[in-house]
């Protein structure tokens, strides 16, 4: 088989052995759930509940704030104790509903009912997915129904199911593929029906041979489905890199996968789509890999949206004293947490606990122009010169050198011998460029 990869990339220690052999464990209902109203990219949803309200499991507590938005549902039945600002795992404090479960875990009417899906048409499926509050579960949290609604002039001919899971430590998608392969493929065929696509590729890195085998067997029963084994190189699961590795199609700079007639969905999202369409279960649970040397018993946890990191730690045997960093997501792209008060969102694929002696300090010495970052950058940018521009606040030059195409994968900073916080610089430049008034002409 040929080389299935892309330009650049790095080979970090994968550290998936903590949890790769561990089955998904459902976490018992915690004493409280903190459910953020904003859990998607795009327009923030509008809360529709108030303090003191009784809610049922699956009840909408926040309605979409626009087309590019997804509703939020109560993850269990109980009472809304308060509506308050809580530290959101991706950064600032955000409004959230604090739900005290009543223990009955009772579904709202209309949810959790099996439905015959054989004759559902695309629009109906899309509506059910939209109503289920689905977002991309690989981490970006982009509303799924929007991805499934390409403009009329964009014809999709290939659906890629992303099971690459290239982030170190994380095994949530890996376990899901082993334990729920049929459901994932059913979910994928729902996507395919919406898009009118005949060809589906399940993309998995070669370091998950068991998942590749299971999925291959299951794919035989689905016409047009196949499994592609990918080289193990980070960021293999990044959309544009994944599409290139599989099809040699290049998503244009600044463009979307649909520009090359491809749609990429995470395997977790496909599973959630199956649950939402077949059983009318909105997205209120997900698999979260709780792992790292800082956690006593690493696990793949099936956790409710709203489970606080504190409770996750409790379920996993506690946190070691040496823990120095807590990351929402994987260690290459995830967000460092300043407390355990943050809670699981629809996009939380893992929580990684690093101990102090394995945390690199990015001290930012001068760039020695070694060029390692250019070799590592999967977008073929020049992180070296970009960072120098940004240090001098030359954002125009940074834009001219395509900083907006940076996917923030972290490869450049990972290899930088001067330990320059390159991704940090690029985020700053992107924010500065986007808040500037648009130039005319």
């Amino acid at each position: 088989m040929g080389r299935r990869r892309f330009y650049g990339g790095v080979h970090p220690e994968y550290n998936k052995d903590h949890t790769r052999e561990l089955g998904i464990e459902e976490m018992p209902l915690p004493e409280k759930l903190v459910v953020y109203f904003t859990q998607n990219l795009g327009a923030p949803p509008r809360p529709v509940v108030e303090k003191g309200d009784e809610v049922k499991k699956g009840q909408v507590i926040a309605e979409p704030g626009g087309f590019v938005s997804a509703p939020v549902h109560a993850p269990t039945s109980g009472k809304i104790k308060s509506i308050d600002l809580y530290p959101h795992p991706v950064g600032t404090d955000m409004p959230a509903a604090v739900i005290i479960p009543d223990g009955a875990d009772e579904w709202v009417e209309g949810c959790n009912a099996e439905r015959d899906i054989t004759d559902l048409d695309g629009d109906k499926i899309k509506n059910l997915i939209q109503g289920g509050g689905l977002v991309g579960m690989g981490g970006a949290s982009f509303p799924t129904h929007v991805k499934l609604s390409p403009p009329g002039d964009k014809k999709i001919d290939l659906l890629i199911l992303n099971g690459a899971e290239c982030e170190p430590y994380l095994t949530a998608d890996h376990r899901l593929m082993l334990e729920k392969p049929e459901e994932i493929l059913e979910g994928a065929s729902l996507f395919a029906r919406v898009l009118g696509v005949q060809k589906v590729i399940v993309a998995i890195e070669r370091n998950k041979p068991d998942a590749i085998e299971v999925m291959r067997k299951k794919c035989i029963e689905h016409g047009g489905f196949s499994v592609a084994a990918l080289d193990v190189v980070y960021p293999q699961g990044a959309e544009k890199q994944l599409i290139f590795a599989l099809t040699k199609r290049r998503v244009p700079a600044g463009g979307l996968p649909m520009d090359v007639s491809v749609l990429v969905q995470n395997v977790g999202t496909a599973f959630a789509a199956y649950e939402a369409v077949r059983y009318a279960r909105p997205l209120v649970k997900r698999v979260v890999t709780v792992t790292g040397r800082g956690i006593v018993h690493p696990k793949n946890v099936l956790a409710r949206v709203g489970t606080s990191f504190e409770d996750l730690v409790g379920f996993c045997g506690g946190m070691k004293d040496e823990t120095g960093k807590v990351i929402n997501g994987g260690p290459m792209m995830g967000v460092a947490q300043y407390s355990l008060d943050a809670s699981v969102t629809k996009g939380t694929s893992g929580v990684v606990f690093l101990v102090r002696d394995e945390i690199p300090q990015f001290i930012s010495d001068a760039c020695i122009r070694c060029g390692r970052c250019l070799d590592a950058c999967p977008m073929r940018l020049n992180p070296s010169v970009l960072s120098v521009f940004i240090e001098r606040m030359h954002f125009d030059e940074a834009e001219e050198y395509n900083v907006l195409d940076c996917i923030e994968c972290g490869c450049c900073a990972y290899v930088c011998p001067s330990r320059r916080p390159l991704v940090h610089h690029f985020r700053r430049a992107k924010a500065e460029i986007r808040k500037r008034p648009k130039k005319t002409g």
Partner: protein
Amino acid sequence: MADTSEGKKPKQEAAPRFLVSSSPHLHDGQSVGGIMRLVIYALLPAALFSIYVFGLSAVRVIVLSVASSVVFEMLSQRVMKRTVRIGDWSAVLTGLLLALNLPSTSPWWLVVVGSFFAIVIAKQIYGGLGYNPFNPALVGRVVLLISFPVQMTARWIAPSKWGMEAVTTATPLGRIRESLMSQGSVDLHLTQQEWIDLLIGNRAGCLGEVSIVLLLAGGIFLIAKRVISWHTPVAFIGAVWIFTGIFHLIDPMKYADPSFHVITGGLFIGAFYMATDYVTSPITGRGMLIFGVGCGLITVVIRLFGAYPEGVSFAILLMNAATPLIDRFSRPAVFGARKRKAAAGG
């Protein structure tokens, strides 16, 4: 509509303290010091060989050059109120490279003046490692070459075991230049043994430039370790071979064999260890090819038509000056780029 503005943040009671920083949260562990040390390891065989053929005087030059470079680095960082960064090994490497570019007969003050210009003038005054536009060791060497031509070019020692015999002689390039001046033609009829001597380094020259075989081995080690890429040395050496080859074909009486040009002078140490200096050479492969060919062309012009028998140092320094321009015109195209607009890049 729920009210989200009232209420306070949840109380944090003796919360554990975590480090918060931008992603990524991993690093491959390579450091500037680690890279510099690899280059030093690659140079060690050639340095040890120079001690074998030039004896104690080679030890003296190397130790003096490295020590004075480190001291100058430390002093200037103190005076300029910068963090002292001896630990990045860059001063050691500069000192070693300078030593390897000096004759074994260099008096002590020549070495110290050279390392002063390399470290203080060429590097620290510009802002230290990463900000110097010119290769520091080469600035040191060229200052000495221009200011003290007698000490730098007139006293060469023929190699002997441990430098015991210390017979003065001329470098191979110096010899053909003399023969060209006096007889009007190059007198180059090398036996097989003489070719082998040139390759293993049994000839007069600067400390580190003589052993082509060991320099090549170190260079291949650096390429294998991905410290340097093949582009610069291949383009540089290839360009020298091709350009001198063209002249040799035109008039073999006046211009020496291209293979002779390639294995004499400081071409190998220059192409593998000096022209590949990160800070002062282009950052993309395409840029390195342009840089290497430019270095080769200038080297040939100086060797064949200039006042000096050797041109590698000048060639690299001149191309250092062109590096920002080369970088500008050899930008990698971003993944998925459409054809760049004609206006861009200006």
